[in-house]
């Protein structure tokens, strides 16, 4: 009974993880694809934050969308999901740092998260921060949950526990902590 409840629970967590993986993956893929064709505008957006050294902005403006696209694809496919989720969480933390520090310094810039960026008369720091915190929560969930449904990584690397029907009676007893 305990085992069945645990499996059901794990299954539910896995489906929730799949939903989170697909959502976050499409967000990152969309953000990367929006920025990739316009490196000059992305560079302007990066410079607007006044956080990175001036010379690093062009390289960052090219590397960031490519990284976002790779992470988006990995999350959608479910390949190296937890590693991709860690990298996604770090990226989101850096975006949150950038947005909140611009807010504190009184800068008026657009976040440039999905293209565009630079000076803005009407920055939406609060909304951007809340949105990124929500995505960060999804990334943390994907790190903690360990396995998600329909992940290509599971198919390719075949890790994990054997199916329930393969368990012998003695191993069931061991798992349940029974000494009888």
């Amino acid at each position, binding site marked *: 009974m305990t085992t069945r409840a645990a499996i059901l629970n794990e299954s539910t967590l896995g489906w929730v993880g799949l939903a989170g993986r697909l959502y976050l993956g499409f967000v990152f893929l969309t953000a990367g694809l929006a920025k990739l064709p316009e490196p000059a505008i992305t560079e302007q957006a990066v410079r607007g934050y006044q956080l990175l050294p001036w010379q690093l902005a062009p390289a960052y403006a090219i590397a960031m969308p490519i990284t976002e696209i790779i992470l988006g694809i990995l999350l959608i496919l479910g390949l190296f999901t937890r590693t991709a989720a860690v990298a996604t969480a*770090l990226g989101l*933390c850096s975006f949150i740092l950038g947005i909140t520090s611009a807010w*504190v310094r009184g800068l008026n810039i657009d976040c440039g998260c999905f293209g565009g960026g630079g000076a803005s008369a009407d920055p939406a720091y609060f909304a951007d921060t809340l949105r990124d915190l929500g995505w960060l929560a999804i990334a943390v969930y994907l790190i903690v949950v360990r396995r998600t449904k329909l992940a290509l990584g599971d198919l390719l690397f075949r890790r994990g526990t054997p199916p329930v029907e393969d368990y012998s009676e003695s191993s069931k007893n061991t798992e349940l902590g029974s000494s009888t």
Partner: protein
Amino acid sequence: MWYVIGLVAVSVAVLVLGVWFVRREIRDQISPAPLLWTGYAIVAAFVVFGVLRTSWVVLS
């Protein structure tokens, strides 16, 4: 100033949670310990750099 204090506090909390997470993964034998600690060191370096850089920019 309060922003930097909050940032440092949150970062320390994240790093401590990271240690707990890595120890849990090692205990459950999810990945080899050296790999997990190397990953943690990379993430921690990234976090520390981010905090130092942002604090520097905000305070200067």
